[in-house]
């Protein structure tokens, strides 16, 4: 593996963490949005908020990580993506601002009306942000970002494939979130909320599955290179994702108390790495290869060191935080 390939792998690791934790976080916002009026939605909203609150910031730092690694290790890819897809990227950034404001302010506001307005801002932007991020990924996979940048600002992403990937991002975030929330409700001993989120996990799983099939069809017609590799080199990962998804559905339908999170995470992680394998060796299929976009070796070395330090320092700290937060969930009931 060359240094550039290793850096690309690190980029993908960051994207995986963001998809898992950031994705679930967006999904939490979606369930908040559809939880109903202030009284009916109170209990699910409480579960969501309790589970999001401590790890909110940490979940989103992965995005910064991905951006920084992309511009440091593969500067031409970064500028090509940003000069072409600036419209959905700016809209995603707008969503991030609104979401952050909603998160920062809603807990500290007393008035019900202001609280609802902030809550609604948080929830609506939780849907729009992953959607636009998905269109960016879809446009890249479709080969609509030229290596030299400045591609068409609208036709690059207003197409079936990017739009369906956008929808898939929203659905898989909702799916992850529902599964995570089942676990949190379980640990909190709230059987009613456990079933509530189980039903939603099931629904989201079906929608995400249907969108994945629609995405495959769109991939077939709009992104032949990626489609061909996804169904050849990437096939084991696609099958793995499918198996995880089916197993999770089976557990949900039979209502067992088996762990759901590894299956849900496995389904999503397999898709992300399947996409990576399918794009290889391109960052921008089929105009910019990883080695063409790579920064000088010394820069890559620093990226590796930073990544290693992050693994040694950040992961244990995160572990401590998750532990403290879970401890809080436990003690809340006693």
């Amino acid at each position: 593996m060359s240094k550039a390939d290793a850096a690309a792998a690190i980029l993908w690791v960051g994207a995986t963490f963001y998809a898992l934790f950031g994705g679930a976080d967006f999904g939490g916002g979606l369930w908040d949005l559809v939880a109903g009026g202030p009284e009916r939605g109170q209990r699910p909203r409480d579960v969501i908020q309790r589970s999001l609150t401590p790890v909110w910031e940490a979940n989103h730092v992965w995005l910064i990580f991905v951006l920084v690694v992309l511009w440091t290790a593969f500067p031409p890819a970064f500028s090509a993506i940003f000069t072409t897809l600036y419209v959905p990227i700016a809209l995603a950034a707008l969503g991030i601002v609104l979401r952050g404001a909603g998160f920062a302010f809603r807990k500290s506001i007393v008035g019900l009306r202001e609280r609802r307005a902030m809550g609604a801002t948080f929830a609506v932007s939780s849907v729009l942000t992953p959607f636009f991020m998905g269109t960016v990924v879809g446009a890249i996979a479709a080969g609509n970002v030229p290596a030299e940048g400045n591609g068409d600002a609208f036709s690059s992403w207003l197409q079936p494939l990017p739009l369906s990937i956008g929808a898939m991002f929203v659905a898989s975030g909702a799916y992850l979130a529902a599964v995570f929330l089942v676990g949190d409700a379980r640990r909190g001993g709230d059987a009613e909320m456990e079933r509530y989120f189980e039903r939603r996990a099931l629904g989201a799983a079906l929608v995400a599955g249907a969108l994945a099939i629609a995405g495959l069809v769109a991939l077939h017609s709009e992104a032949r290179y990626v489609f061909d590799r996804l169904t050849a080199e990437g096939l084991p990962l696609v099958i793995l994702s499918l198996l995880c998804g089916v197993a999770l559905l089976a557990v949900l339908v039979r209502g067992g108390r088996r762990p759901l999170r590894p299956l849900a995470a496995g389904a999503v992680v397999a898709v992300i790495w399947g996409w990576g394998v399918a794009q290889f060796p391109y960052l921008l299929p089929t105009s910019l290869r990883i080695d063409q976009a790579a920064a000088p070796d010394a820069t890559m070395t620093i990226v590796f060191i930073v990544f290693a330090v992050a693994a040694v320092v950040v992961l244990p700290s995160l572990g401590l935080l998750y532990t403290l937060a879970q401890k809080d969930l436990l003690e809340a009931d006693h």
Partner: protein
Amino acid sequence: MPPLDLLPLAASESNLLAAREQMAFTLGFHIVLSCIGVALPATMLVANYVGLKKGDERALELAKRWSKAMAVTFAVGAVTGTVLSFEFGLLWPQFEHRFGSVFGVAFAIEGIFFFVEAIFLAIYIYGWKRLKPWAHFWSGVPMVVTGIGGAFSVVAANAWMNQPQGFTLDAAGKVVDVEPLKVLFNPATGYETAHMILAAYMVVGFLVASIYAVGMLKGRRDRLHRLGLIIPLTIACIATPIQLFVGDTAARGVADHQPAKFAAMECIQETGTDQTEYVGGICTDDGVEGAIGIPGLDSFLVGWDTDTKVIGLNSIPDDEEPPAHTMLHLAFDAMVGIGTALLGLAAWFAFVWWKRREIPRTPWFLRAVSVSGAAAIVALWCGWIVTEVGRQPWIVQGYMRTSEAVTEADGIWFSFALVLLLYAGLGTGAILVLRAMSRRWREQGAEKVESPYAPHSEEVA
């Protein structure tokens, strides 16, 4: 048909102006929140330490309040910081394209510091009820280290833009080799990072003290308010004299490394020895109007000798001259003037404390403290105006012009307008939330007030 030829140029110049305005505005907004993230943890931990060591409930109460207030500013700062990293691509894609592999390293390092700070802020806030008192105190210490480390990395990247080194270009101008240590530790790193970290401590110290000074002026003269004034003010008073020394070193560094910036901020028109130091005034090509001039002082400050030669704007090629000389000059003077006034305030406080172990009795002292926070922020902004506008027309001094870096995308004025609107909401929201928190603290105590990252209050209480 000349007009047709001129059109694209005009369009891109308009884009450049819009992009620069948007960047300046979003940076100016974010920098205040960054200061809080850098310096409030230490302030908070001093209160925490005093509280534990002396069993002082009031000091602990302050630390608790500040941690909850910091949760709000940190969450908003995380958002405005994310916006900045998007803007690198949305506004300055060619800058990233050419030099991302060089200075990106600094941001990668900053990313770790920020990540760890975010995690430990949440741990600290959760820890009020979940950790033993001293373990909880130590769980806050990583925030002090990461705040300083993060500020160092980001400002090192900015220092590199002023003093680029540590990379090799091929004939086509592409970066082919990078020496990361030289990038991080460029000639401007030392003074720029020290200047900024001290500025953060000054801003936070004076800002927090000013809040309690206002409370005391309203007649709330309890122990909580006194401690809330003394702790941050002491920190600011230690930082201020060091800052004047560092700032002085920084100015000499700029005179050496970026003579065009120095000439503009000091209004020096003609290269030569025995330069006059101008205070205030309007800069014109024929000299300075309406300023107080001190003959020879500028040369003396640069080289400890009035015979020191200082480069004037006449030696700088027209297309490499910074714009807006008067604004640069006045911004520089305002920064130095405010810094000096704050030094006076610090000396006043230190003297009375040394004599009588209490804060000066006159309301004029509290009035001065109550405006010191805003003054420190204005000085901070002025300093960044000098650094950034003074580097123009370069984005990377001597290597890349800002006009080469800017995006070709349409609609930057529109996005700037939207950003203004959004940030007005964000700023108003943050201030309203902080005020509401403070009101409830007075009525109910810190326990009952919810904040981001914190567990539900009914659970902890």
